[in-house]
Every structure is written in C-alpha cells, then in structure tokens.
C-alpha cells in the first residue's frame, strides 16, 4: 500500500511537470506604444488617392488655447486623468499602439467573421447576401478574397487621404497637444511636436465608421463602439481635446463619403453575375475547344464573383486590366497539361509534414482574413518596428491594399477570361489538402496577391525584400502542395502580381512620401 501510494505520488508529480497552459495571447496585444521616428509634418502635400487636394474638405480654424471653451476641454481631460480605471488605461495602451494598426486588425476580424460561403437553398440553388438586409441569412457580405481585397483597399485608401488632409490642417493651424498647453496634463502616450488639431485618431475613427455603412453594414454598431473607444482613449491619454476629436471625426467622415461614392459605382455590385452570364462563360470556353471550369461542390455553386475583373482599379485605368492579363494556360487537352496534372497528383499522393505545414500556413480559406488580410498582418508586424507616423503607416497600407485589390481584379479578369478547370475536375483522383476554391484555376489568386504584396512591401521595407519574395513563392507553391493549382497557375500568378505591384511602387516613388 505504501509503495503504491508513493508510486502514485510520483506519477502525479510527473503529470504536474507537463502542466497545461491556457494562455494564447495575440502577438500584438503588447505591441509597443507608437512613437514615430518623425512627425511627417509636411505630409499634407503628399498625393492623395481620390481627393483633389488636402483642402477639398474644409476644417474650420480651432479656437485659441486661451479661450474659455478650450480651457473647459482641458478640464475634461483632467477630470478623466484624476481617476483612470484599469480598463481605461488598457484602452489607452491598446489604441496607443497605433490607430491604423488597430483598425487593420479589426478589419481582418470582420473579414474572417463574414468569410463564409452561403448554405444552399432547398432547391439546390444558392442564396446571395443582400446589402439591404445584412442581418438575414446569408449575412451580408460574403467576405471572400476579392470582396476582402476591395474592402481593405477602400478603408486604407480612405484612411490615407483623410490623414493627408488632417496633416495639412495640423501644420496650418499648429495647435499644440493638450499636454503641451497645460503642464498638469499628463501625456499617457509618447509625446511629439505633432499638432493635435484635428486629431489623427478621430480621423481614423470617423473614416472607418463611415466606410462600414457600405462594407459591413451589419457591424456599424460594433465599429461605432470601437470608434468611440478610440476617441475617448485619446482624450484620457491627454493627447487630444474634445475639439481636436470632433474636427478629426467630421473630416474623416467627409473623406470616407468620397470613397463610398466611388465604391458604389466601381461595378463590384454587379460582380456576382447571373445565370445567363455563368452559362455564357461555359459555352464560350467550349467554343474555344477547351474543357470549361465546373463547380466541384454539391450542389454546384455559381462561380465566385465572375465579374470582379471589371471592377475599377485604384492604381491604373480599367482599360489597362486586360493588358496585364497573361497569355492562355496550357490547353486542357495538351501534353503540357497532362504533365502539370501528374505533378499535382504526385504532390497530393505524397504529402510530407513540411508540405502540409506550408499548405496550412498559407491556406487563408473560409473564416480567415483571406490572403490580402494575411499579407496585411505580415505588413503590420513589420511596420510596428519601423517607427512610422500614422499618416505614413496609412500610406503604406493603402499602397499594399490597393495593390492587392488591383491584383484581385487582374487575377479575376484572367480566371474568367480562360475559365480553366481545377486539377480535381480533370482528375478526380486528385484529393485536396485544403479547401478547393469555387472559381477557375488560372491564374492562382494566392500567387497574384502575394507577388503584388511582396513587390510593394519590398519597396517599403527594403531590408526584408528577400524574405517577402521567399514568402510569396512559398504562398504560391502551397497551392500546388494543396492540390488545387497547376504550376502554370502559380508561375503566371507570381509574374502578374509582380506587374501589379510595380504600379504601386511607381505610385510610391511619386506620391511625395518617399
């Protein structure tokens, strides 16, 4: 009995050594407080995306810091600072890591939440989400990769334009931050010489809340709550007064409206197509003597956003889109296609742990932020270390996200121009190690997105260029390992993505920020 007990105690001791953990924090939970290397005080002259200039929307001159109204605003800050709760301090630190960063993360969260294909109707057709009724199933939107790429681009571009305008007025009015005008106000965040009117954080809150009305109408309440948190955190932190906040939010909302107006007319609304257009894609491909793509889902699901190639790009004119389309894929009846098909069959029949790891690392399938969101997270992780000002961070994200939206446009144009089948359609023996996307194979979306992203990111953070290139290539080949793309899809996708990325680089060289 004694021996048994000591044995048992030994086992319990060993078990405790293996003790289990529940702690899985986000990598950015403790991101450092944003402390830009420079204020970029002249960013008001940077080239906006849509605005005709930084003064397109007027911002009234602020009250002088000697006025009773301003002094009352300082008292509001002091009132908060007398007695900050732990959750208020946490909110200050959360938003203090960077407004652009936090909004990017929230956008990725919304995309993940809404990135679910609708369940079929009883008759085997599929319902489409309705922007007019976002809470009815299927929820609006289905944030698939093209939708997500476009949403990220609009939000980032609008944030950038609004911050360019904000920086113009900051320099023009030169109102110091409250911690500079009153020594008894404590700066709870890193200080700088950047004028505080209008507040850059409120600009971001206003832009993003306004963009939600179009992009995620079911989340307006959630986003408004986040926007209110962000604004209040800056007052409590002593870095902005109530009037700095109000001027910033108003400016942000006005700039966003310019972007939502563009978005409503960019043809994305018609991208889903209809039965006649889906049938035409099939018959046109048959007429060319090729095997057309068919949905491998049961019941057969209409292809994902076949008209997305017609969407108006940001970085080049829409007439340029077809000129970026690569030549045709190997004919479905060619020897080359047989060879490429055999290569994919070999990959799926012999999955190594490393290939499975790579496939899953880059899968970015349903309920994820999609490949553009994955690249956004990669970029943010690097930008955290760069000491960018908010306006520069927004500019760099806008370049990245516009490049990926335009990559989606060119990629989708190519996919639906050639309407090429997936490997599993041509050889049912090919079982996939990741979800099979419901649209044609040529060219690979992952490859196009990733090359476009790597190209512009290499310009922004040149020291990481080699890694970005390696990541893009790994993302690309992950689709072959997963059994859902041929080699030509991936190679041409990378080439095409690089070309789109080059447009972003050329914009970056001339926008006044480099």
């Amino acid at each position, binding site marked *: 009995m004694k021996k048994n007990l000591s044995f048992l105690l030994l086992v319990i001791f060993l078990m405790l050594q293996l003790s289990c*953990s529940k702690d899985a924090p986000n990598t950015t939970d403790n991101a450092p407080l944003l402390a830009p290397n420079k204020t970029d005080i002249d960013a008001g002259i940077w080239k906006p995306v849509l605005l005709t200039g930084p003064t397109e929307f007027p911002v009234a001159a602020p009250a002088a810091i000697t006025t009773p109204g301003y002094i009352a605003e300082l008292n509001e800050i002091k009132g908060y600072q007398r007695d900050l709760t732990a959750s208020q301090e946490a909110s200050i630190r959360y938003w203090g890591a960077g407004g652009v960063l936090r909004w990017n993360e929230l956008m990725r969260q919304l995309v993940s939440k809404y990135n679910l294909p609708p369940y079929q109707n009883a008759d085997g057709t599929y319902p489409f989400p309705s922007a007019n009724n976002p809470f009815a199933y299927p929820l609006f939107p289905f944030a698939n990769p093209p939708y997500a790429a476009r949403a990220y681009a609009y939000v980032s571009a609008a944030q950038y334009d609004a911050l360019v305008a904000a920086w113009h007025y900051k320099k023009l009015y030169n109102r110091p931050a409250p911690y500079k005008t009153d020594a008894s106000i404590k700066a709870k965040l890193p200080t700088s010489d950047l004028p505080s009117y209008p507040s850059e954080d409120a600009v971001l809150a206003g832009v993003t809340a306004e963009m939600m009305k179009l992009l995620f109408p079911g989340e307006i309440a959630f986003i408004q709550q986040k926007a209110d948190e962000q604004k209040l955190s800056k007052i409590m932190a002593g870095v902005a007064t109530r009037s700095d906040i109000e001027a910033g939010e108003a400016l942000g909302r006005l700039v966003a409206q310019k972007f939502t107006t563009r978005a409503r007319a960019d043809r994305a609304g018609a991208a889903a197509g209809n039965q006649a257009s889906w049938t035409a894609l099939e018959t046109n491909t048959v007429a060319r003597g090729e095997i057309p793509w068919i949905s491998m889902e049961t019941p057969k699901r209409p292809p994902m956003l076949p008209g997305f190639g017609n969407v108006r790009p940001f970085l080049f004119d829409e007439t340029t889109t077809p000129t970026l389309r690569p030549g045709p894929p190997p004919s479905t009846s060619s020897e080359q296609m047989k060879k490429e098909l055999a290569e994919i069959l070999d990959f799926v029949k012999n999955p190594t742990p490393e290939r499975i790891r790579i496939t899953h690392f880059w899968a970015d399938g349903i309920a994820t932020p999609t490949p553009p969101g994955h690249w956004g997270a990669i970029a943010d992780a690097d930008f955290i270390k760069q000491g960018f000002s908010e306006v520069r961070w927004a500019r760099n994200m806008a370049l990245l996200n516009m490049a990926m939206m335009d990559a989606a446009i060119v990629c989708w144009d190519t996919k639906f121009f050639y309407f090429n089948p997936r490997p599993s359609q041509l050889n049912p023996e090919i079982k996939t190690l990741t979800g099979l996307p419901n649209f044609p194979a040529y060219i690979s979306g992952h490859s196009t997105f990733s090359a476009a992203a790597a190209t512009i990111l290499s310009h922004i953070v040149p020291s990481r260029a080699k890694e970005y290139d390696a990541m893009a290539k790994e993302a690309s080949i992950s689709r072959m390992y997963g059994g859902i793309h041929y080699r030509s899809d991936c190679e041409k996708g990378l080439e095409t993505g690089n070309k789109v990325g080059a447009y972003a680089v050329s914009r970056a060289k001339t926008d006044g920020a480099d």
Partner: protein
Amino acid sequence: MQIIKTSIHRITCLLIITMAACIPSKAQTEIDGIMMAKNNYCSGLMYNYSSWDQYWEGTLKRNNLNLGTVSTTTIAYMGNYGVSDKLNVLFGLPYIKTKASTGTFSGLSGLQDLSLWVKWMPYEKDFGKSVLAFYAIGGVSLPVSDYTPDLLPFSIGLRSKTLSLRAMADYQIGSWFATVSGTYVVRDKVTLDRELYYTTQLHQTNEVAMPDASSINIRAGYRTGRLIAEAVWNKWTTLGGFDITRNNMPFVSNRMNATMLGVNFKYNLKGVDGLSLIANANATLSGRNMGQASNIGGGVFYILDFTPKKKTEKKADTSKK
C-alpha cells in the same frame, strides 16, 4: 465472492477504443472496474471503424453533400500491466485514418496520441455476496506525430496534451456488476501551422487555448472470468469552446459534446489460456459540433504472466487470508 472477483483480476482485461466522431478516437483503456493481477501484462490490438453522415453544426443537425460519409479507421495497440494487484499501468497508441466518401477533400492518416494511465484501487470490500471497489485513475496523453489538428473533420486528433483524473466505483453482485465513473480532462493549448484564426474573434497567434472537458461513464452487465457482456453509456462534455457557425468548418476549440450508448463483449478462449477476443459497438445519441458517429470494433488480447513461480504460490496463500 472475493474469489470470483480476484479470479477476474487474474485473467482478464478489457481494453476498448471509444470513438467520438469529430473528436477523433482515443484509446480508452482505463475505464472499467477490473484490475490486472500483479506481474501480469495484458496487451493486444484493437480495430475500430467509425462513420457518420449527419453532424451537429452547433446544435443544428445537418448533412453535408461535400463530405458524404466521413469515416475513421483506427488500429490501436493497448496494454495493461499489474504493478501490484491494486496498482496498474495502462497505455494505448492508435494509428488513425480518415476519409470522406464525396467531395474533393483528401483524408489524413498517422499515429495519434500516446495515452498512459495509472489505475489505483485503494479500497475493495467484500460484503459476502457482493464486492465494492473504488478506484482513482490518472492519465496523460501526448501527440506522438506532427499531425495537424487544423483540418477537422479530417484531422486524426486534436493534438492537445491532456491530463485526466477519474474517480470510479465498481459494484459486483454474483456475476452482475455496475461501474460508474467521472473524469475531468485538462487540455493544453494547441499549436497550429497558421498565425491567424477566428473563433468568436480574430486571434493573431498560432496557439489555441483549449477548453477542458469532462466525461461521465456508466456501464453495467455480466462479468465472469470467462465472459464479459456490458452496456456502456458515456457522456463527453467540453467545458467551454464555441459553436461552429453556419456552413463553417469545425475547429479544434469547438464545444464538442457527445452522448453515446454501446455494448462491449469479451470472451476468454478456453483452448488457449490468456487469449481473449473483444467486440464492441456504439452509437451517438446526441451531440454538438460533432458527427453522429456509429462505431464497431474488435480486438485480440493476450495475457503474459511475469510472476516467478515461487512467488505465485506465496501470493495465492496471502490472498486467502
């Protein structure tokens, strides 16, 4: 009566794989009211086939035409060694293969988790016609291959290290018995191959915090040294986790629950001393975020006696006192 129970101890062990649908199968060997006698080692191979075509998406029961029937085939090596009559060490190691009958997804296969238990019987009392015993069982399980838990329902396991602690009572009257046990399973966080995943919010890390789980097991039936026939009811409850959203894939930290009912049979062959055959079957009565699995299995086990001859006699003497 003590003689009957003791003879059961000597010559039988009942090792069964419990299959639990979306939660891939786990070798569960520690869960019955039988102890291996000192220096005896019972081990063998168990085969199990599990399948489902209906599953619970959260609480909504549905099918999926892109999966058809999802099947799991398991072969497990399991063993039970008597350190003493009151203390046993048990283990199980399954190889698992998953497959869907329709759709384009490839199944997965590989060695899953090694489970180890220590089973202690601190109390056993003879009431003349009946015997009552209490047990405490501690276990660990550890993944032994780098399989992915991130492609459910095809993943062969959840890849979480676990600690479990079970309390059990067994009552035998004549050849009839009932066993009741409850277990608490502490589950370690799981590492994925990706750095972004969504539960009810976006997580930017490759680590997933796993909810703990509990299980209640009730079994009753006929038990002699020659034959065991029992009915088994098992309820697995995940203590936390989230529901699969509409038309989403299952995720490792879902709230996976299942209530299962089944039967186990074990027969010790007359011809060969120590050789036994096992058969089992069970069905899922209700569940959440799991497939409604039906399982069938069979196995062959053999007992080796490592007792030095002299000691056996001595032991036989002491057991009589």
